[in-house]
């Protein structure tokens, strides 16, 4: 973003932009302060992104850089209204990496009305470890609950084990009684390290070990070494 481009904008547009970018206006700002603040915000965002992204993402991004003056998020996206919800009770579970998965769900009007009526009911996500089970809803290896609000519709969930099958239930807890409203698909978290033990076929296992050692020297294969890396959305919620 260039100063010149911002200076072409009206005061209203600048204010809208500042609000969009989350810049808090404590008092009526003058034009040049506003431009400075917006520029600084853009620069900061850019720096943060650069730090987060690996070199591949940074290079791929340049395919889309044909102007330093990006389109500004001024106009509403109302030209294409899309539904907030599809009025179906359903929960979907999507793997993101060895320890995190993303759940999104919806509760239809009928179920939502039922929950609202009863003040004692708590909406829950019940996370089940179903590794090596043919899960039919009756039994899992272990489970834990995540209380959510009726207004929530998505959540990032930390999962203890890589290479493990998990399923989610969306339900209501009334006293100690759990009622399942919807069950998700089963996901499987990916591995984060090579499996132990020599391969069952192929060449001399010792040679294999040397090859893997050689590769380990070149690249940090514990790319996901820190399982404590917290997704941005959760960070932002923690800040709130």
């Amino acid at each position: 973003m260039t100063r010149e481009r911002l200076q072409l904008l009206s005061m209203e547009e600048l204010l809208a932009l500042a609000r969009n970018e989350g810049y808090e206006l404590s008092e009526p700002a003058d034009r040049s302060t506003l431009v400075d603040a917006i520029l600084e915000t853009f620069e900061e965002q850019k720096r943060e992104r650069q730090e987060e992204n690996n070199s591949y993402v940074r290079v791929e991004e340049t395919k889309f850089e044909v102007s330093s003056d990006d389109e500004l998020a001024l106009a509403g996206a109302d030209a294409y209204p899309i539904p907030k919800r599809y009025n179906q009770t359903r929960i979907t579970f999507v793997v993101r990496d060895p320890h995190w998965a993303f759940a999104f769900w919806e509760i239809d009007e009928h179920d939502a009305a039922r929950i609202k009526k009863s003040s004692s009911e708590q909406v829950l996500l019940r996370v089940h470890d179903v590794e090596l089970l043919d899960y039919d809803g009756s039994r899992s290896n272990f489970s834990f609950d995540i209380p959510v609000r009726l207004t929530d519709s998505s959540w990032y969930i930390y999962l203890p084990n890589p290479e493990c099958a998990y399923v989610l239930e969306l339900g209501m807890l009334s006293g100690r009684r759990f009622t399942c409203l919807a069950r998700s698909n089963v996901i499987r978290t990916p591995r984060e390290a090579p499996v132990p033990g020599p391969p069952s076929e192929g060449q001399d296992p010792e040679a294999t070990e040397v090859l893997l050692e050689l590769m380990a020297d070149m690249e940090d294969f514990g790319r996901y070494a820190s399982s404590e890396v917290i997704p941005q959305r959760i960070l932002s919620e923690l800040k709130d």
Partner: protein
Amino acid sequence: MSRGYLSLVLHWHLPFVRHPEHERFLEEDWLFEAISETYLPLLSVFERLCEDGVPFKITLSVSPTLAEMLRDEVLRERYVRHLDRLIELADREVQRTREDPEFNVLAVMYRQRFRDCRARFVERYQRDLLSALVGFQNLGCLEIITSAATHSFLPLFEVVPEAIRAQIAVAVRSHVRNFGSAPSGFWLPECGYSPGVEEYLKAFDLSYFFLETHGVLFGSERPCRGVYAPTYCSNRVAAFARDPESAKAVWSSEEGYPGDPLYREFYRDIGFDLPLAYIRPFVLGDGIRVNTGIKYYAITGPGNQKRPYRREPALQRAEEHAEHFLGARLQQVQRLERFLDRPPLIVCPFDAELFGHWWFEGPEWIEALIRKTAAAADRLEMIQPGEYLRRHPELQTLQPCFSSWGNKGYAEVWLEGSNDWIYRHLHMLARRMEELARRFPNEKGVRRRALDQAFREMLLAHASDWAFIMKAGTTVPYAVRRTREHVYNFNRVYESVMANDLNQEWLIALERRNNIFPEIDYRTYLSAE
């Protein structure tokens, strides 16, 4: 037999961007810049090598969205107009810099490049770059493969498998139409692999794919040959994993070649460096400056003080870097060969737009690398996956692991706070598409066209590029709008068809605008059943 193999894989991809409803549209420049800076220069490299009788073997993945755009008359015409504007600008630059030899020589260079682009595109290739590629495929120099129809990041669609299947089915059909033969291999967008995707590949006779190093390293067994030989999935579709060492030489922001001080600086463009009054005829209608491709400075160093770019030393450096890369690969082969029962294979996949667009000297680096490799063919031989599999059909079988080449190696780039809201809609579109295909198994006339268009809109919404851009942060409003647009269009068709209340005028306008995959057939959405 050579002592080692080098498999160079170039992935050509851009998302479908075509806006005939606007006189000029900023994001169409993605294609125009890529043609001028990457695709035409690479074609020139291939031509020079052929003329000189230098053998080469490259695997070229051309995404279906890009192939469809390269075929499109509106975009071809607009590209020529784009070049005409640039030639005019370069003419002015030659005048403006006439007293300043350091810059003048560059202005003359750019003018010549734009003129060459125009002559090659219009006269030599008759605006048809796909046919030019087929020519090299017929010579055996290129093995052209396909990718997902709209480059969807497949692992995030596991729960709606028909959508994954459709990405592959539509891609293969488009490839046959655009390149005249069925593809033998598949580029997984963003190297995004999740277990089971090989079943869909097999169903379309695709015999291999590429994935990130740890996709094989973290497989169901330790890979007995590391990543220096492909492996089979249980259905005998072969997985070729990226070599981390060679990737680092090029990609690393600290040590990678493209950051050399002599190379051209990507971020200094006269579109932004010169006064608006001067550049105004070439900016977008409402005064938005755009990159022109005319960039006068060298990377120089980390600060803002840049020296003027000098072409000859930069090309010399590209040559040295090619020499260095080859030397490192030869050493790598030497180091590895005693631990392998066959010549080690080094797989180097790259986004092609890295070369030329971002790394200006990249095409010359590739050319130098190929020439030098040809001279060292007894030690390192370029090979394509098909040929490798013919020579070495005995491979270890293992189940690769969920992986991608994005940050941290899994799905984090395409599934995070900035873009996670889209999946609710993208999955719903896939479910609704299935519902439409079941409910209307064999429609004709207008309803058939509406259902075909719904299929197109779903595919366009599923492009990984929109999620990528939301995360990467460049031109986010466009990516958001495109996602919303295709979700909206799809839902509108869905609801109209369900209510038997279709606005034909709207449909016709939509078909004209989002005209990708002209032969699409919604009835194939469920054809596996």
